[in-house]
C-alpha cells in the first residue's frame, strides 16, 4: 500500500506530509531542535514527551514557535 499524502496547516501555510506522520518525525524533517521549540496542535500545546506519540492527519493545524528577540 502506498502512503497517501495529506495537507496540514503548518505555521499558517499548507504543508504536505504522509498521512499519519508522527510529530517527532516532522520536527526532525524540519531540522528543528526540540529543546528550542514549542508545538501546538489544533490550539492545544503538545508536551515534548508526546511528540513521538502524536500522528498527524489531514487538516491538522500545527504551530511551531521559538524565542526571538523581543522587549
Amino acid at each position, binding site marked *: 500500500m502506498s502512503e497517501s499524502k495529506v495537507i496540514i496547516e503548518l505555521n499558517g501555510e499548507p504543508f504536505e506530509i504522509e498521512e499519519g506522520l508522527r510529530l517527532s518525525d516532522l520536527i526532525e524533517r*524540519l531540522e528543528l531542535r526540540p529543546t528550542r521549540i514549542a508545538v501546538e496542535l489544533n490550539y492545544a500545546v503538545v508536551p515534548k514527551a508526546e511528540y513521538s506519540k502524536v500522528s498527524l492527519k489531514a487538516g491538522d493545524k500545527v504551530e511551531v*514557535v521559538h524565542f526571538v528577540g523581543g522587549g
Partner: protein
Amino acid sequence: MSVEAKGTGYRLTGNLHDSPAELRAGVAVAKMDEDYFELAGRRYRSRLIVGTGKYRDFAQTRAAVEASGAEIVTVAVRRVNITDRSRENLLDYLDPSKYTILPNTAGCYTAEEAVRTCRLAREAGIGDMVKLEVIGDSKTLFPDVPATLEAARILVKEGFKVLPYITDDPVACLRLQEMGCVAVMPLAAPIGSGLGIRNPYNLRIIVENAKVPVIVDAGVGTASDAAEAMELGCDAVLMNTAIAGAKDPIAMARAMKLAVEAGRLAYLAGRIEPRLYATASSPLTGIIR
C-alpha cells in the same frame, strides 16, 4: 570605626571622626553592596532588565546584554520560519542557565491570545515566568487593562509567575498584585517612545502600595530616565529600544547599568528636600570683611 547600624542589619563603617552625614553615606554604600531584589523567590543583584529586540544580530544582542549587566532578559514567542530556517537561535547566544529568560506576549490583543502564547512559552522549557502584555491600541501600544486582568487571572491559576505590563494606574496595579502576580510593571511612557517618566506621582503611589516588585516597563529614553525611575523607589527598570535603538547600543547598555545603580543608591541615600530658596553650602561665619 565599624558598628552595627541599629535595626538595619548593615555595618556602619568609617573613621572615628566621620560626621553623621558621612556615616549615613556609608550605610547607603554598604546597602548597595548587599542590595538585591527578589522576584518569584529568586534574588537578583541587577535591577536592569533588558529586551532583546531590534538588535543588528545575535552577537550585538549578546554584547549589549553583557554590557548592561542584566540578569533577566525578555524574548518574544514567534513562529519558526519553515521555509528559511536559520541554524542559529537566540538562546545559543543567551545561555538560559546564565540568564533568566522572560518570554513576553507582545503582539497579543486579546486575553486568549496572550494565554495561548504563555502556554507555548512554558512548553519551550525555560520556566514559568512570563511578561504579560495585552495591547489595547496599535498606535499607543497602551495595555488593555480589563483584558490584562482577565489573562493574569487565568495564568496565575495555571501556575504561571506573571509580570504584567500595565498602565501607570495604581488601582490596576493593586488588582494585579491581589490576584497573585509576582510583580507589577507600569509603563513610564508608550513602548519605544523614549519620552521618559511621564507620571512620577502615579509611580510613587504604585510603589507605596506595592507588596510585590514594581518594575518600570517601557518609555525610558536615556540614562537619566532610568535613574529617575530608581530614585522614585521602583525595584527595577525594563527597557529595550532605549538601548537597541541608540547609535552605540553597547555604550548605552553600560550607561543604563550605571544609571540604574546611581538611581538606586540615590534612593537609598535619601535625597534632600527640594526647596525654593538657597541655603549656603559654605560657612556663614568667618567671612572676611
